C-alpha cells in the first residue's frame, strides 16, 4: 500500500511538472549584465520582469484557450560577441527558448543573427546597427528607435535653429559608435553642415587631449551615441577648455545624467534627444513603477522593451500559439496601432531595412534651460515639428 502511495505521489508530481512546463512560456533576456553596458541590460530585464508580472498576476497569458505563465531566463554576454554566441546557444539549445529580449549590443546582434534566424527565435534587440534588421533576419525586431530613424529629422531641426557648420563628434570605436558616426555624418551633410567624427576606446574617461585638438575649428559639438555619463563628462571637459558653442545630443536618454555629471551651467542650452514623453500617463506610470521597484533612475530604453513585449504578447494571442514562431512573427508584422506604455505602436522600416521590423513611435527634441529639459519638438522619421 505504501509503495502504491509513493508511486501515485511520484506520478502526480510528474504530471504536475509536465503540466507546468506545458503551461509556461520562457522569455530569454540576452544582454550585457556586466561591463559598461550593464545599465542598459538592467533596463531590458526590468521591462521583461514588469511584462511578466502584469501577465502572471492575471493568471497568465491566455492563448488558444490556455493560460501560460511567463518565466524569465537571463544570460550575460559581457558585451563580447563570442560570449553572445555562447549565451544564445545556451538559451536556444539548453533552455529551448523561442523568444529573446536582446541581443543588446550591435556586435552581439550581428554575431548571433544566423543562429536566431535558423532557430526561428524571435528577438527584440537594442542593437543600433542597421545590420541587426533585414529580410535575411525575419525573426529579428527592434523595439527601440535608433540613429537611423531620429538622426535626419533632428539634425535638420538643429541646423535650422543654430548656425553650426563645422561640427565635431566623439564616439566609441566599436560597432555601435561606427554605425552612429556614419549615420550622423550623412545627416549633417544633408543638413548642409560638416561633421568630423573622432573615435575613442569605450573605457576612456579623459577626453581633454582629443577635445583640445578637435574643438580648435569647431562651431558645434555632437555627443549623440555616447552613454549618459560619457556625454556628461565630455561636455564638462569641453566647457572647462572654454568651449561655449552649441552642443547637440541627438541620441540616447542623457539629459538627467548629463546634468548631474556636467552641472547646470555647463549643460545650459544643450539640445537633447528625448526618447520618451513623460506627459503620456502610461509612460509616466512606467517610470514611477521602475523607480519604486529599483530605487534608481530608469534607463530610457526600458519602456521600449516593455512596449515590444506588449506587442509580442498581443501577437501570440492573435496567432493562437506560443510555439509556432513563424505564425507569431507573421501576426506581429501585421500589428499596428497597438496600445502600449509608449503610446500606439506599429512597425516601420521597409524602405530602410527591407523589412518592417523597426518599431514606429514618436520621439522628441528637448533643450536644457536652467537645469530643466523643455520639449521643443515632436518628431517622426520624416520631420520634427
Amino acid at each position, binding site marked *: 500500500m505504501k509503495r502504491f502511495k509513493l508511486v501515485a505521489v511520484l506520478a502526480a508530481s510528474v504530471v504536475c511538472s509536465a503540466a507546468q512546463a506545458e503551461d509556461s512560456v520562457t522569455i530569454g533576456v540576452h544582454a550585457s549584465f556586466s561591463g559598461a553596458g550593464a545599465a542598459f541590460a538592467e533596463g531590458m530585464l526590468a521591462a521583461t520582469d514588469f511584462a511578466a508580472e502584469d501577465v502572471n498576476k492575471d493568471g497568465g497569458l491566455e492563448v488558444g484557450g490556455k493560460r501560460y505563465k511567463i518565466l524569465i531566463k537571463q544570460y550575460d554576454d559581457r558585451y563580447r560577441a563570442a560570449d553572445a554566441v555562447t549565451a544564445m546557444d545556451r538559451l536556444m539549445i539548453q533552455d529551448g527558448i523561442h523568444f529573446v529580449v536582446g541581443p543588446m549590443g550591435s556586435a552581439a546582434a550581428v554575431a548571433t543573427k544566423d543562429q536566431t534566424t535558423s532557430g526561428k527565435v524571435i528577438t527584440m534587440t537594442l542593437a543600433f546597427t542597421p545590420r541587426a534588421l533585414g529580410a535575411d533576419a525575419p525573426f529579428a525586431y527592434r523595439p527601440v528607435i535608433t540613429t537611423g530613424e531620429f538622426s535626419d529629422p533632428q539634425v535638420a531641426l538643429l541646423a535650422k535653429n543654430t548656425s553650426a557648420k563645422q561640427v565635431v563628434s566623439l564616439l566609441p570605436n566599436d560597432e555601435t559608435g561606427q554605425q552612429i558616426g556614419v549615420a550622423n555624418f550623412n545627416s549633417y551633410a544633408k543638413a548642409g553642415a560638416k561633421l568630423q567624427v573622432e*573615435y575613442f576606446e569605450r573605457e576612456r574617461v579623459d577626453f*581633454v*587631449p582629443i577635445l*583640445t585638438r578637435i574643438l580648435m575649428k569647431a562651431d558645434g559639438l555632437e555627443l549623440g551615441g555616447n552613454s549618459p555619463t560619457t556625454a556628461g*563628462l565630455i561636455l564638462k571637459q569641453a566647457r*572647462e577648455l572654454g568651449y561655449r558653442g552649441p552642443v547637440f545630443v541627438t541620441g540616447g536618454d542623457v539629459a538627467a545624467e548629463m546634468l548631474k555629471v556636467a552641472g547646470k551651467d555647463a549643460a545650459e542650452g544643450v539640445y537633447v534627444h528625448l526618447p520618451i514623453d513623460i506627459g503620456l500617463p502610461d509612460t509616466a506610470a512606467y517610470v514611477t513603477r521602475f523607480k519604486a521597484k529599483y530605487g534608481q533612475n530608469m534607463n530610457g530604453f526600458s519602456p521600449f522593451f516593455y512596449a515590444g513585449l506588449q506587442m509580442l504578447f498581443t501577437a501570440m494571442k492573435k496567432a493562437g500559439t506560443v510555439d509556432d514562431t513563424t505564425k507569431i512573427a507573421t501576426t506581429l508584422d501585421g500589428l499596428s496601432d497597438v496600445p502600449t506604455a509608449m503610446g500606439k505602436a506599429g512597425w516601420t522600416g521597409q524602405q530602410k531595412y527591407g523589412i518592417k521590423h523597426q518599431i514606429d513611435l514618436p520621439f522628441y527634441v528637448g533643450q536644457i534651460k536652467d537645469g530643466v529639459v523643455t520639449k521643443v519638438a515632436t518628431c517622426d522619421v520624416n520631420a520634427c515639428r
Partner: protein
Amino acid sequence: MSMDFILAQTVVNGLMVGMIYVLMAIGFTMVFGIMRIVNFAHGEFYMIGAFLFAILYGSNGMPFAVSVLLAIGATALLGLLMERVVFRRFRGNELNGMIASVGVALILQNSALLLWGSSARTVPPVVSGVLSVGGIVFPWSRLVVIIGAIVAVVSLNLLIGHTRIGRAMRAVAQDSEIAQVQGIRVDVIFPAAFVLGVSLAAFAGVLMAPVLSVSPFIGLAPTLKAFVIVVIGGLGSVPGAVVGGLLIGLIESFAGTFVSASLSEILQFLVVIGVVLLRPQGLLGRKEREA
C-alpha cells in the same frame, strides 16, 4: 584657441594623467619588488578608493579631509585583509600570485557591481574655476590632482629613504632572506608594503573621482597602464615608475591632442616593445643576476 594654449593644456593634462599613473605604478611596482607578486587587482583598490570617496564626500556630504582619510583607511584595511587571506600564500610565487590577483580583481569588481550598481557616479568638484597664466587658463580641478600626486610621491620618497620601515622595505626588496638574517621582520614588511601600495592606489582614485567618474569598471585601465609603466621603468623600481608614468602620461596627451586617440595607444605599446627589446630590465631597472 592659440597654439600656446594647446601646448600648455597638453602638458598640464599629460602631467595630470602621468602623475596618476605614477601613483598607480609605484604601488604596483612596490608590491612586485617586495612580495614578487604582479598584482592585477591593483586597479580595483583604485576603484574602491574612488567609490568610498564618492559615497562619503559626494553622497553624504562629509568634510573633504575626513572623506579622503576614511576612503584611504578603509581601502587600506581591505588591502590588509586581502594580503592576509590571499596574497600572503603566494609571496615569491609569481605565476600563481598573478593568477590569484586576477581572481581577486574579478571578485572586487563584481562585489562593487552588486553593492553599488553599474551606473557611473559623479563627485562634486573639490575646487572650481581656472588658473589664468598669461592668458592661458588651467582648470583648478586638474591642477589639484597634480599637486596632490606630487605631495604623495614626495612623502613616499621621504618614507622610503629616511625612515626605519622604509629602509627595511628596501632591504627586503633587495634580498628578503638576508634582510631576515639582519633582524628585519619580513612578516611585518610584506603587509606594510602591500597596504602602502593599496593606499597609493586608493589616493589616486580619490584624486581622480571629482575630475572623471566612478563606476565598478574604472580599475582595469589604470592597472594595465601601471603594468605598462613598470615594464618601461623596470619592475620593482620606484624611480622607474615615476619616469615611466610621466612618459606614458605625456605620450598619451600629446599623441591624443595632435594625432589621434587610437594612435596614442599604439605609441604607448610601441614604446613598451622597444624597451623590452632594447633594455629588457626597463629604463631604470636592474638586470636579474644569472644563475
